[in-house]
Structures are given as C-alpha cells and as structure tokens.
C-alpha cells in the first residue's frame, strides 16, 4: 500500500505552507496532492506557487497530483480548472463532474467528492480517463469490498484514512458568518484557524469544524488501527494535513504499513498526537462520528 498526503484543506500563511511542503519532501509519502480545493478566494499560494512546489516535490521523488475545487460556481472557477487541466505535466484530481468532462479522456484521479458508489459508475470514470479513485468518505469497508468484487475497471483505490473529514460544501462561508462578514468581504479570516473552527453542541460536545465554505468533522478520522482490514482492497491511504505533527502521523502509518510496528501499537502511539478525539465509524458501517476500535 502507498501513502499519500492529501490536499491542504485549510488556509495557512504562505511561509507556513512553504515550510510544510519542504518538510513533506522528506516524509515517507509516495504521493502528494497539492492545490486549493475549498475556496477560490484564498491566495497565499498562487497557481505558480503550486506548480513550483509540485516541481520541488517531484524532484524529491514524489508523485504529484494537482487537486481541483469541489464546488465550481463561476466562470473564473472554470478558468482556473481549465488551466490546471491543461498543465501538461502533472496528474489532476477531479472533484466535480465538470472537471471529469474537461479532462476529455486524459488521465486523472477521481477525488473523494465525486459520488462513486457502485461499479457501474466506477467504470464510467475509468472510460473518462480515471487512473485512480478515492472512495466517498461515508462508504464502509463492506460496501467497498462489494464494489471491488464486481469491479472490472482495474483502477487503484484510495481511502481517506486520517484527518478531520470534509463532510459538506456550501456557497456560504461559515467562517465569514461567524465574524458577521459578507463572503465577498471575508477579510480572509479563515487564516486565523489553521485547523478550522470547532463547533460544539450546547452541552459542549465537539461536533463539527467550520473551514470556510467547508464543514468538517470535529473528530479526527483515523483508520490506522484498521489497516489489516484493508489488505487486498486499498492501494493508497490518504493522510490529510494538520497544523502540527503531520510528519509524525505519516511516520506511524509508514511503520505500520512496513510491518515495523503492529497497527494497534501504532494507533496507541498516535493517540497523544491527535488534536481531537478519533472516530472510525464510517469504515465499520456505522455513524461516522462513532469510534469503534478502543485505543
């Protein structure tokens, strides 16, 4: 199984991003997804910065994939999408059927925000040029096994295996709403929350995280303890960047994949690095918020 570093879902200052990817070049990940998937207004990294970072990571031996926005609303969103689709150098992750259409048969990764729930749809994506697909977040191991048992596409399967889960997208910016600002004049306040803004219930339970137009789980999805149940099904495990300790998280997954430590032991070592309590319900066919494996 390969390890990937997912696209950065948050808005971090430019220097933080440069530093993060300089470190990532040395981490034991095989694939790095780059690019802005959440909000077109974010601009600490411009397209040229992403492309330069992509070259740097490719030189470091990483497979680089350029991720594209999940919610494509405007002509300028489409313009950006076309520019990425036509970059001629790096693979693209499509997160919208508009992007799938624009690839016009050129190879791409079908991202987690394409709704791929059955082998018939997976076959359509393969015909459109997909080389790999990322399972929808809410899909369980059993649903994946059933799908792959009937799959004839032969695509690589990637699973979101670590991080706060991107659960929903809206045209509304919930961070701007929190600050009583209109989205068009958001003042880029999401840069103040490098891990999103935790939303709690009125009895203090951490429930969701507001990340601009994206709503995430407050809990951190982690399938480290479930690695054995993935064999024969999953080709790539995705780790989603977090502000601190991402390198350590990568190292623990790597050690478990290489057999250097047992998954349960690695999961035990992961516990103190988790910024919020873990969850793993989706993989086990339950509500996503639930944690089924004891640490």
């Amino acid at each position, binding site marked *: 199984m390969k390890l990937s570093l997912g696209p950065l879902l948050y808005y971090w200052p430019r220097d933080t991003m440069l530093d993060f990817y300089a470190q990532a070049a040395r981490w034991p990940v095989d694939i790095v997804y780059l690019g802005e998937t959440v909000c077109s207004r974010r601009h600490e990294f411009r397209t040229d910065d992403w492309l330069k970072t992509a070259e740097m990571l490719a030189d470091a031996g990483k497979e680089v994939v350029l991720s594209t926005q999940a919610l494509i609303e405007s002509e300028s969103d489409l313009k950006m999408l076309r520019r990425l689709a036509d970059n001629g150098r790096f693979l693209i992750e499509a997160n919208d059927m508009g992007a799938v259409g624009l690839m016009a048969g050129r190879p791409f990764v079908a991202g987690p925000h394409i709704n791929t729930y059955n082998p018939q749809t997976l076959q359509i994506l393969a015909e459109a040029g997909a080389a790999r697909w990322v399972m929808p977040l809410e899909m369980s191991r059993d649903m994946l096994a059933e799908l792959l048992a009937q799959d004839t596409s032969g695509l690589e399967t990637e699973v979101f295996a670590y991080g706060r889960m991107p659960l929903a997208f809206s045209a509304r910016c919930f961070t701007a709403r929190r600050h009583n600002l209109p989205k068009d004049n958001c003042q880029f306040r999401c840069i103040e929350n490098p891990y999103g803004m935790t*939303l709690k219930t009125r009895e203090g339970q951490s429930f969701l995280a507001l990340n601009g137009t994206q709503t995430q789980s407050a809990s951190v999805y982690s399938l480290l303890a479930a690695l054995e149940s993935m064999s024969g099904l999953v080709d790539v495990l995705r780790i989603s960047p977090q502000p601190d300790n991402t390198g350590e998280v990568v190292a623990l997954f790597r050690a478990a994949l290489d057999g250097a430590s047992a998954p349960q032991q690695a999961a035990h070592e992961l516990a103190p690095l988790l910024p919020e309590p873990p969850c793993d319900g989706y993989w086990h066919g339950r509500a996503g918020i639930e944690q089924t494996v004891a640490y």
Partner: protein
Amino acid sequence: MSLELVCPAGNLPALKTAIDHGADAVYMGFRDNTNARAFPGLNFDFAAAQEGVRYAHAKGKKILLALNTFPQTATWSRWQQAVDMAAEVGVDAVILADPGLMRYASRTWPQLRLHLSVQGSATNYEAINYYHEHFGIQRAVLPRVLSLAQVEQVVKHTPVEIELFGFGGLCVMVEGRCVLSSYATGESPNTAGVCSPAKAVRWEQTGNGLESRLNNVLLDRYEANEKAGYPTLCKGRFEVEDETYYAIEEPTSLNTLELLPEMIAMGIAAIKIEGRQRSPAYVEQVTRVWRTAIDAARRNAETYAVQPIWAAQLGKLSEGQQHTLGAYHRPWK
C-alpha cells in the same frame, strides 16, 4: 419558453390536488430508498404511480419520478428495477443523480426522458454538459447555492433545460455533497434517501428546556416561548468560540416569488416546489399561489409584484415562518 411549475407529491391525494390547482408537472418517488424522501408511509407503489400518471395525463399534465439516491453495489438491482418500473408506468421523465444509473436508463429505455437531480451536484455548465453528452439528460435541477448571475451563466452555456428550486425547505449545503447526516446517524440522502432521519430524533423536556437530539447529539434547546422546528442537523444552534447561534443556517424557508420575472427573462425552464413530505393541504396552498404568481409574471413582467396575500398565505406554511432568497441573493452567502 414557458415556465413550468413542478409540484411535490408524497401520495395520490397530494398529486391530484397539485394537478387540480395548477401544477404543470408533479414529481414523486417510489416507496423505498430509491429517492431522497424515503420516509415511512410516504410515496407511491406501482398501482398508485399508475393511477397518478393516468390522472395527470388525462389533464394534459406531466409526472416526473425521482430516483435520486446513489445505488450501492449490493442493492443495485432495486434501482435498476425502479427505472424499468418508471418506464413501464409511463412517467414523463426520471430524475437521476447516479451516472451508472443514467447509463442504464439511457441504454435500456432510449425514449425515456432523463433529468439530472439536484443530488447530482451540478453547479456549472461543464458538469451539466458532461451529463448531456454522455447520457442525454435534457434538464438539470441546480443546487441551491448559485447566485442568479451564476445561474444565468449556466443557462447561456448549455442546451440543457434548467430547473430551479423556488419554494420550501432550504439546503444550505450543495446537495449530493453533504454527509453531515450520516456522520451523526449513519444515514445520508446519498445512500439512504434521508437527512436527519426521524428514527434518530429524540425530544426531551429537561430542566434546561425542550431539547432535540439526533442520535444523541444535542441539536437545539428551546425556551418555553420558542417555536421548535424539525431538528434538521444544519439548522440547530451551536457554540462557536463561546457564541451560541445558528452557526450554519436559521430554520428558514426558501421563497423566490419576487425573482420570477428575472427567472423567466433568463430562460429558466421550470420552478420546483420542495416538500414531498408535506400534506395535500400544503401542496394545494403552495400550488395555488405559485400558479397565480407565474401567470401574473408571464402576463406582464413589468407590472408584476408579489401580492401581500400570496406572501401571507405562503408565510403561514413556512418553516420557522421566515423566508429567504437564499443563494440567489448574493449577500446571503
């Protein structure tokens, strides 16, 4: 092009009421999780669907059938059979979200008209044109996230008819791209055809007030003088940085009556009324008002104005009795 009024029906009485009071088309679902209103006691079996189609066609109106959830591998055949059943019943179109199912329908029933469901999450013309080129979809229902200016861009760049939501429950998230419900309960619109399912809801009178919970997650707490609405996950009050408020969306309804002339001018093909889970009495009221409004706007867009009586009638029916123009109006975002 005329603007079609598309009304909801959760049962035969609602369907007939909608047809009798001015709907051009009625949309419905079969009685299982092949559609995004898979509620107990709601929807149509084969015989009721047949009767609905017969009733509508006798009056020159259309029936659209929503098959807008995503089939799983193990249950694929149920969705495939539902497409077959819809074609055999003689509906005027099926409303689909899953590409695999679109291919099946287009190959097996080439005469069957396909609409792209709002659950298909197509927010741009490239996505809509992809579905058109590959599966021949003839109409797309847009998610409730675009501004009117963005909608106009879509209309200009696609041969596909565009249908917009005009009235009723408001999804603040992009439909088909929201799994908040399965995060809390294990069931989402995509997979189970339900959002914030009733079986996971619990009401409890406590010392702190009336509390609503969804699979034990506290969604809201009401004072004695507050009106409690259905506990949809995104419409609860939550704490963010020590402030308690409707962090995602107020319990409000979409109402776009005042935008009708603009929608007609930009060539929108149809207006959809949300609410297959609502009563025949609700469907009657909403259909009546929207029929009157559409006719007035088409007669003379210049002099068209929302009549106070329409607003009053719709206001009584709305969730939380609040209205919004939603994303069509840019500042909402």
